[in-house]
Each structure stands twice: as C-alpha cells, then as structure tokens.
C-alpha cells in the first residue's frame, strides 16, 4: 500500500483504481456494479454497521469516480448523503471536566450571558443565547468546554456547509469555493470531489498513442513533495507510461504569470493574485466589490496550457495537481479552451496502479522547464517572492513592493476585509486558500511538515535561476 494520510483517502483511491482498471479494459459498463463487492468482499463489516451499507456507500463513491452521482449538481464537491448521518451537532458544550471553579472565566468571557451555573458551580451553556463564538472554550483553564461541531463545518472556513433536515451535510454552492478542505477533513469520507479520470483515460485511448493528437500532462510544482516512495523522474516516466505524450511543468506557466503580474502590479498599483482558483472564487462570491483588484492573468495552469494549445493546435492538455478547485477552474469559459481535464495526485496514483505500474522500477525521466521562482509557487509566499523577482527583472526596482502572503482562506478573509475598508496591509495580496499553499491541497497524497522544504529544494534544482531565462522563447 502506498502512503496516504488517512484510510479515507485509501478507500477513495481503491475505488478510483478499480474504475480506471475497468475503463482501460473497456469493461466499465458491465463491471462497475461489482466494484463495491470487489472492495468489500466478505461478510464482516470493517467500516459501517454492515457490509451492505458499506457497499451502498461504495456504490456512491463509484459514481463520483465516474464523474458524478448528481448530474444536476455543477459543484465538483459533493456530499454522499448516506455516508453522512451520525456526527454530533451540539456546538460548544461543557464537559465533565468542568470542576466548578470559583473564577468563572467562561462566564466573564461570554458577551451574550449564555453561561449559567448549577448549585455545584458547574457551568452549562444556554443554547438560545450562545452564538458559538468559542470565547468560553479559549479561557477555561481545564479545557472543559469543547466544540462538538462537525469536522466538515469546522474545515469550511467560508461557511458553505450546514446541516439539512435529515442531519446530513449540505453544501451551499453559492458560497463553496471547491477548496476541498471538507473532503480532506471528513473522517468518514462523506464529502468527495468528482473525478474526471474517465475523460482522461478516454482521451488517451482515442489519441491512438498520441498519433491522432497529443495528450500533454501539465504537472503542478507541488508534485515535488508527493510520491516520495519514488524519484520524481520515475513519476514523470510513469505519467508517460500511462500514455501521455510528454510532461510539462505548470511552474513554467507560473514563471510567465510572475513576469506578467509584476508588470501589471506596477501599472495598477494594487493587485490580488489570480493563481489560486479558490481564492479568486472567494473574492467573486463574497467580496464582489474587490473583483477589480484581481490580476487579469490566467492561472499558471491555464497560462501554460494556452501556450501548449497555441504551439500544438488540436492537442489535449490534462492538469495533474494537488487541487480540487482546479476541477472547478477548468470549467470556466476563459479556461475551458486550454485545459481539457484535471486530475489530482490521488487520482494519478490510482491511474498508475490501475495499470499495475510500479513506478519505482522505471528509469528516471526528466522534468525541467521552469525556474526556481516558478517552482516555489507551490508553497505559501512563493508567488510573492516570484513577483519580487519579476519586478527586479523588469527593472522596476524603485517600485515600493509590499507583498502580503495570506496562508489559508482565513488569512485571505482578514486581508480582504482590510482591503474592503481601504486599509490594505500591502499592495500585492497573495491569496492561497489552503494552509501552506498548494502543498496543503486536498488532492495531495500526503501532507507533511517537510513538504515546504521539498518544494524549495526542487526549486533550487531548476536549471534556470531566473524568470526571464525560463520564459526566453515565450516572450
């Protein structure tokens, strides 16, 4: 078994792998219905109350792996209703750890007067007054107040998740930015991103070994922190073994973006970044007044895909990355002409194994298109560093550059609120919806503390040391 952070990811991977296996063999139509039993063969349940429920949920996962269970739902993030029913919904509650102390810091901290005490001085929360602010929990010296919120709701910092009548999670598509935080955080795997692996398999098969048209893989720089059981060059060879014509770094698109964005910044004086589709979507949905500040550059993915389509008309471009929001981005009318499909690293692993491809046995391919600066886009702060370099290479050294790197959607929110009040903390707002940047993306196989170092190391290994050299022929 390859390394995943959780068993939820592993289960999702197994479904994707089986779906892909059947698709390669042209047996999906008749075989899909048997996938749940292939994965849960016995009579003893290991995840749910009985194997029948386990298989019923797996059948839903199969639908998601095949694109969607709800055709009418345009969101790429979907709730599997029958997998979601039992989480507590109490919010802040006082537990048995309350010692009935004298200080009553909880009551002092509560601005709503929601805390009352019984005859033993033990606290309780009046739910009719409580606004779930959490101030009481922060001050309790015994940490006796806990938040019995659902992990999905906790994960969703844009507050797009609420509970429906049947106590299942429900996503408000008007607020959801498809970042995938809930997908990664739900301990039961009840929320999942739709997969487009079938489109990719179909594209590869119909290309007739890249003779009819070429299928390009564009890989995100965060790949350097993934597939750590193999060498990066072997991952590249593996992608080609799957049937892709060649592999190109999205980081080269990032170089192009950094170069253009630094110029745009000087012209406009104030910009918010456009690389992270979830951040852009967040501004459009929650801060429409700030839309004018969004950089007009396409994302690195779309920028490099556009270049590929210009140099090789008729080709197909598949983005492989850590991101579920990219699945939303590529459907946008301004990106759709350039990007044909998007899959995650999780899905790439499933594709490798669907073909029984042990990438550790492959020779190392090469991947080197971008500069150091394009590559470090994968982590928080990288984009701001790259724009600084872009300013330098353009000769705008006297521009008073004040970047603000917002690490995660909560920091994005804080800085957007400041901008709304006309007191921005800087003149270039780098927004990354995932904490840590793209390496924290929901589609990563693993999320580790060392991932940032891996990205920086990969950046330093780039043959090109500055942006202008990397984009020499593209200018």
């Amino acid at each position: 078994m390859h390394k995943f952070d959780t068993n939820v990811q592993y289960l999702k991977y197994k479904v994707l792998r089986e779906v892909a296996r059947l698709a390669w063999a042209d047996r999906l139509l008749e075989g899909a219905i048997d996938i749940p039993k292939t994965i849960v063969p016995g009579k003893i349940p290991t995840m749910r109350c009985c194997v029948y429920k386990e298989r019923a949920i797996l059948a839903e996962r199969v639908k998601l792996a095949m694109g969607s269970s709800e055709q009418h739902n345009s969101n790429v993030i979907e709730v599997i209703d029958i997998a979601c029913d039992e989480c507590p919904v109490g919010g802040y509650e006082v537990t048995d750890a309350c010692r009935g102390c004298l200080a009553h810091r909880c009551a002092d901290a509560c601005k709503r007067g929601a805390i009352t005490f019984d005859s033993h001085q033990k606290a309780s929360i009046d739910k009719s007054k409580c606004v779930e602010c959490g101030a009481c929990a922060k001050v309790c010296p015994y940490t006796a107040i806990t938040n019995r919120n659902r992990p999905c709701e906790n994960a969703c910092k844009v507050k797009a998740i609420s509970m429906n009548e049947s106590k299942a999670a429900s996503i408000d598509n008007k607020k959801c930015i498809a970042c995938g935080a809930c997908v990664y955080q739900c301990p039961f795997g009840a929320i999942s991103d739709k997969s487009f692996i079938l489109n990719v398999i179909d594209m590869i098969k119909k290309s007739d070994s890249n003779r009819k048209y070429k299928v390009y893989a564009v890989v995100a720089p965060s790949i350097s922190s993934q597939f750590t059981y193999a060498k990066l060059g072997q991952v590249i060879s593996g992608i080609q073994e799957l049937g892709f014509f060649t592999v190109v770094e999205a980081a080269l698109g990032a170089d192009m973006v950094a170069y253009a964005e630094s110029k745009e910044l000087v012209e406009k004086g104030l910009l918010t970044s456009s690389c992270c589709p979830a951040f852009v979507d967040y501004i459009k949905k929650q801060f429409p007044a700030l839309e004018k500040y969004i950089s007009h550059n396409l994302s690195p993915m779309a920028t490099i895909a556009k270049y590929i389509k210009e140099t090789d008309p008729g080709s197909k471009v598949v983005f492989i990355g850590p991101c579920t929001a990219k699945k939303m981005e590529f459907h946008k009318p301004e990106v759709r002409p350039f990007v044909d499909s998007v899959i995650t690293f999780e899905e790439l692993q499933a594709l490798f194994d669907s073909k029984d491809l042990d990438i550790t046995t492959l020779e190392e391919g090469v991947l080197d298109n971008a500069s150091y600066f394009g590559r470090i886009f994968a982590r928080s702060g990288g984009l701001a560093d790259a724009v600084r370099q872009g300013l330098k290479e353009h000769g705008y050294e006297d521009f008073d550059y004040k970047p603000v790197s917002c690490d995660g959607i909560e920091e994005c929110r804080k800085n957007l609120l400041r901008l709304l009040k006309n007191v921005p903390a800087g003149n270039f707002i780098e927004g990354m919806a995932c904490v840590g940047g793209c390496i924290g993306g929901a589609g990563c196989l693993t999320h580790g503390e060392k991932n940032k170092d891996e990205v920086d190391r990969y950046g330093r290994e780039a043959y090109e040391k500055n942006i202008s050299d990397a984009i020499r022929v593209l200018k």
Partner: protein
Amino acid sequence: MKITVCIGSSCHLKGSRQIVERLQELIAKNGLQDQVELAGTFCMGNCQNGVSVMLDEELLSLSPETVDSFFETRVFSANQG
C-alpha cells in the same frame, strides 16, 4: 521561414534556451525579424538527439556550439536577396 526549438525538459537541459537566446541575437543583428519566425514547442519525440530544432518541416539536431554555423548556412544565406 519558421524555426521551432524544442523546449521540452530533455532539450532544455541540453541547452535549448541558449540556442533560442543566440538565435534571437543573430536574427536581430541581421535584421531578419520579418523573415524568420522563432517559436518553441514541448517535445518533438526525438529526445535522444536533442536539442531538436525544426526548420520549417525539417527536423535537425543542434547544440549551443553548432547554432552559429546553422544560422549562417541555413538561415542567413536563405534570407539574402
């Protein structure tokens, strides 16, 4: 005339950027911007013999050392008169 230089990973590491840079210089120096179009592409399927360069429909192998003579014999001479 169109010169397409492979900027795929393998050719890039063998010096395609230096070739592009030199060709840009030579084209500018000789005032051939209107006659010669310089472009890049990812992989021509000839990685073993990189740096791969297409001169219109003809596939060639160049290196940063041979770019000057290539320009002189194939580009400059073809665009005179």
